[in-house]
């Protein structure tokens, strides 16, 4: 089961390393890990997607709460959450494929942000599931490179 943990932590050097080290040491599997500054410069927000059953997640939470730099941590329930992933994808597109690919992309809510004679670069902002589906859809055309952020999430 996937869980999205949102943690408010001190904005000081080494905090990211301490939290990620805790995950490695205890063998918790991280799907994604995002750190960013917040409206208050004293704190940062870590958004971590982690897999595990309820016992494991409870352990993850308690272990994280023990860290001196972790101020508050929340396991956000899917129904109470808005979440998005940002994707950039470079897809092969010669003159014959180009139009077809753009049609498919716009059906996926992806935007062309750069074009060359051999490839297109798309940008898409969507839920994790829809981004994964989109990647599958584009595989047959030939993905040259892709990069995506982890999940950013907020409680409603």
């Amino acid at each position, binding site marked *: 089961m996937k869980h999205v943990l949102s943690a408010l932590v001190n904005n000081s050097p080494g905090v990211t390393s301490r939290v990620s*080290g805790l995950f*490695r*040491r*205890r*063998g*918790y599997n991280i799907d994604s890990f995002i750190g960013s500054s917040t409206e208050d410069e004293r704190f940062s927000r870590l958004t971590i997607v982690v897999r595990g059953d309820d016992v494991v997640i409870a352990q993850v939470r308690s272990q994280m709460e023990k860290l001196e730099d972790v101020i508050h941590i929340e396991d956000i329930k899917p129904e109470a959450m808005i979440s998005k992933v940002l994707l950039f994808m470079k897809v092969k597109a010669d003159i014959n494929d180009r139009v077809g690919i753009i049609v498919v992309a716009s059906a996926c809510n992806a935007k062309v942000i750069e074009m060359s004679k051999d490839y297109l670069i798309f940008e898409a902002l969507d839920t994790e599931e829809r981004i994964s589906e989109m990647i599958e859809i584009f595989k047959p055309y030939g993905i040259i490179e892709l990069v995506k952020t982890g999940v950013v999430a907020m409680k409603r």
Partner: protein
Amino acid sequence: MITGAEAIVRCLENEGVEIIFGYPGATIAPLYDKLSKSNIRHILVRHEQHAGHEASGYARIKKRPGVCMTTSGPGATNLITALATAYMDSVPLVAITGQVSSDLLGRDVFQEADITGAAEPFTKYSYLVKDAEDLPRVIKEAFHIAATGRPGPVLIDIPVNVQQQRIDFSYAGEVNLRGYKPTIKGHTGQIKRVCKAINSAEQPLICVGGGIFAADGQAELKRFADTLNIPVVSTMMGISALPSAHPLFMGMLGMHGKTIANQAITDSDLLIIIGARVSDRAVLFPAHVGKNTKIVHIDIDPAEIGKNLSTLIPVVGDAKEILIQILEAEPIRKSEGWTDSLKAKKEKLVLDYGPRETGINPKAFVNQLSRSLPDDHIYCADVGQNQIWSAANCEVRTGRFLTSGGMGTMGYSIPAAIGAKIADPDKTVVAVCGDGSFQMQMMELATISQHGVGIKIVVMKNNKLGLVKEIQKKSYKNNECAVDLTGSPDIVAIAKAYGIPGRRIDNMDEAEEAIAEMLSCQCVYLLECVVDENESSM
């Protein structure tokens, strides 16, 4: 089907491992069980830290990775200082640690320690093996990573259940690591620039570090210096790259180095650094160098170049290869006056070898000791005043000078000497330490006795932590604190208790005869030398 433990043993044999320094425990028991049926020799140490140091001494002489092995938890954490020591001095090690069962990882069970995490800053690379099928590949990669490029320690952490897991065994194929491709050959454009710099230099100087040994390039260094008649200084790790008495060798530089060597750095107009980090101890005021000095830096690790000194001509690659490449490009030296003047200054050096009111003169003693030893002897110096006395005064000829240069780890000399002697039993190997450092390693006297390792041990006894005392005298208004070693045992009696012969001397008149007695002894021998506590390191 064989077990993971058997697979490890086969892979180690396949890597040509002949000896392992280690200490057993519960989580490494399956591997010990299979190891006992192999031809690989095991040396039981008396503390895990020394397993690492012994593997280090072995590796430096054998020119291949040394292997050490401990159990999980405290066994593994005790190894960390040795890993850090090897990491700082770029010594190739493969460390194997047992780990708790993989299904219990992260639960803080008995003797669990996150060793891959704890050792992360001190290892070149590390593995936590969770599937025995990965063992052949991991072990092959570990030896490759440890020995190639800039050498260093690699840690393999293996849970006990992975050692018991049954697998279909086959040896791993060629190593192919996408992110790891060390540069060996120097860039031809850079070689040309180096030649041009040499051609136009009036006062060139070579500064050699420990990298020359990793490249096995001592002969090329000598040819390079001789052909171009360029004087040479060394860092502490570079001692024995050239024989001490070589006319072009101006000695060690740095905080505890020779004035002539430091002055040469300041005066040179071209400094050719070969395989050295040029740390704070080597070049005290990096900002002062380089005003009029062009710097060429040859190193296999591109991250070292420009780290401590701004470099004009970086050359990344293997020191030996690059020296050959430079010589092939036939640079020409024009002015020889600089070399002659340095040689003349070296001749005029006054040595402080006179007698002392109490105790021996340690500087004169280490000089006499090294001159009495065979030309190819291996000299292991510990850390403290004894290291400074040794570095400045021992006369290395065709052998090696081993010490913990980067980390300055007390208690390195005896285990390093054990490893070196086992690597090359025909060589005379001497460990020189102080009474402080001796007590950090004296448990290894048992290892020596058990395995019949015939090294020579010299303990400089002044009843003080002498180098710290000197710092307190100089910088803390002579406030001597926590440096008094009162309570130390009778060192000769301790040796005797381990079945090791030895004697004590307290003046230089006895030195010659005592050294002769030590060297005539076929087995291990300990010589305690009484030194006055106010004897300074310089």
